[in-house]
């Protein structure tokens, strides 16, 4: 019998990897990729529990997340292009005008 634990563990690992990438990387594109990683970790989690609980709602939700992630990626890439046009760089620490 296939259990959910390994998938949840996988999801946890992926999420942590994405989170660390989000926090430590300075490259905006890498940060965006880390966010995608975190989305997919959540998707795996959703599907694992959907499977485990025999409830298809989780899988539906995963489809939604993928859709939203696509939109997010579009906006994120748009921001990157704007940043590049403004500062000629993709380094996030260069965009610090709002520092108090």
């Amino acid at each position, binding site marked *: 019998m296939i259990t959910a634990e390994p998938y949840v563990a996988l999801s946890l690992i992926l999420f942590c990897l994405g*989170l660390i990438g*989000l*926090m*430590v990387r*300075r490259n905006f594109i890498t*940060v965006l990729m880390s966010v995608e990683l975190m989305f997919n970790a959540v998707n795996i989690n959703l599907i694992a529990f959907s499977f485990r609980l025999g409830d298809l709602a989780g899988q539906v939700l995963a489809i939604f997340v993928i859709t939203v992630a696509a939109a997010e990626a579009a906006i994120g890439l748009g921001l990157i292009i704007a940043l590049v046009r403004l500062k000629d760089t993709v380094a*996030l*620490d260069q*965009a*610090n*005008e*709002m*520092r*108090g």
Partner: protein
Amino acid sequence: MSFYDLIWLVPLFPLAGAAFNGLVSNRLGLEKKVTHTVALIGSGLAWLWGWAAVIQWYFNEDIHHPYVVKVFEWISGGELTIFGGRVVSLDIAASFQVDALSAVMVGFVTFVGFLIHLYSVGYMHHEPDRDYARYFSYLNLFMFAMLTLVTGSNLPVLFVGWEGVGLCSYLLIGFYFEKDWCASAGMKAFIVNRIGDFGFLLAIFFAFFYFGTLEFDGLYQAMANDHHHVFAGAATIIGLLLFVGAMGKSAQLPLYVWLPDAMAGPTPVSALIHAATMVTAGVYMVARCNFFYQASPTAMLTVGVIGGVTAVFAATIGLVQNDIKKVLAYSTVSQLGYMFLAAGTGAYIAAIFHVVTHAFFKACLFLGSGSVIHGCGGEQDIRKMGGLKKYMPTTFWTFLVATIAIAGIPPLAGFVSKDAILAKTFEAAMTNLNGHGNVYYLLWFLGLSGAAMTAFYMFRLVFMTFYGSFRGGEEAEHHVHESPWTMTLPLQILAVLSIVGGVLIGFPGQLFHLEGWSFIDRFMEPVVLSHGEHGHHAVSLGLEWGLVVLSVAVALGGILLARSMYLNRDPEFAKANALAERFPLVYKLLLNKYWVDEIYGATFIAGTIKLSRFLWEVDARVVDGAVNGTALSTVGSSFISGVFDLKVVDGAVNLVATIYDVASRWFRRLQVGFAQGYAMVMVFGAAVLLGIFYVIKL
């Protein structure tokens, strides 16, 4: 419509003249001819209309009742509660009346007034056109006021006239207002009169309070029907207060001081206002309100005593004055004293009779003195005159006639009326009137000695002015001339009236067992409130004649004394001067008019000035201090309020701002401006929350 229905037109004619001369002639500086024609028409129409009205009234109406003409409702004061809880409405009409007293007054006021207007044409012709118009405007205005005074049928209308004549008197005394002393003489007259007017006003208020009406007829009826003497006290109060008014207007002690100074005005004014008409307004008013005095022995005695004392007091001053007009002024005060003496014995008709005859001879004397002054080029000091007889014959004989009249030589006008007064006073003494018989004996004696002095000082004036030789220097002697006909005609008319006026109007019938021959006695009888107990034949015929002989003897004595003192040649006035040197104190006392002006100056005037100064200090210190204190406290409180606003209110606002300022200095550091930093905070926060949930096992 008849003349007496339109009696109110009589004052209006001169008013129209005054309006024209004052508003048109004076502004445009019209020719003298226009000015005096208008003025003469104004006063002349008043004269004609007045006489026509009086005559027509006499033959058509019942002369025992006043004929009242109401012109319009003047004051509607609503309902008032008066004495005894009665509620009456205060309605005062501008109404006029014709009765015997008004008729007599209108008769001689319009006539003498017109003559003096005519005289003024000659006397004032040296004045510039505008001043000439101003003069005639005032003179006509005076006629208006005086005629309102004597024809008004209630106290307020009388009061309007009363104040009007006072105003005109003020204006005319101060006619030469460029001269300081003329202006201040006018003010003196006005202020002294105000004191009297205050009493008069109070009397009017009291009269309304007690009687609820101010119509003379209503007051007369109320007093006539007062059989239980309910109003005896009221009559005393009102009578005395009215007399205070009369004291001011008619120059009685102690308010006589303005009249001698009033001689600062042009001489015709002195004749018209300050001798013949206005000053007799007080006598008229007392006679008009005789019903109050008849009911009040106290008020009556006061009037008599003040009158008698004034008669002698003013006569003594007149003995030594050297200004021709001053002598006549004191003589006027003295004669007015006689009138009040008569009123004070209940002989109101004799008082009015003397008013009329006095108007004739005193106007004649004043106009004569004006002619003398005019002829001598403005000189008024009789020591610088003398011998004018041959230069001014008409003036001389008219002046002499009037002098004989005032001295009381029969059968001239002054004798008839003055003797009537003395006889009535003696009668009052003999019948022990109101129980004051002894006082009336004393008053009679005062009146008699006053008559002697009158004869003396008047003949002194005649001798010094017209007899002897001219003392004003040769240069002045050349200029002495007789006056034009406009001036001498009134003199002649008045002189004739001074001779026959007395016998004609008030024939002393009682001396010949011909009672009822005296026109004025019969005519005016209904005016006086009689209580029926009048002792008509208290004095026997022999005693009457005795009194006449006595008063004539006294007058002749005065004349002879004056003759011996002032009609000797070498050196002139030797006896008079010797007498003055023998009694220097008395002479100085009289010459300086008992220092009354100085005493008033030191007491009332200085007191008033001190009081004003004190009040000014109060004003400056207390009132202004209070105002300034308020201002200061306002400034102070605004300062405190400002400080409070600045420190507390603004402080609170700033404190809030500062708190935010300081706080934001710290909190803004949270905005690191580094996107991943926020993510880290989020993760950290989530971790903390998870940790908390884990601990508390939610």
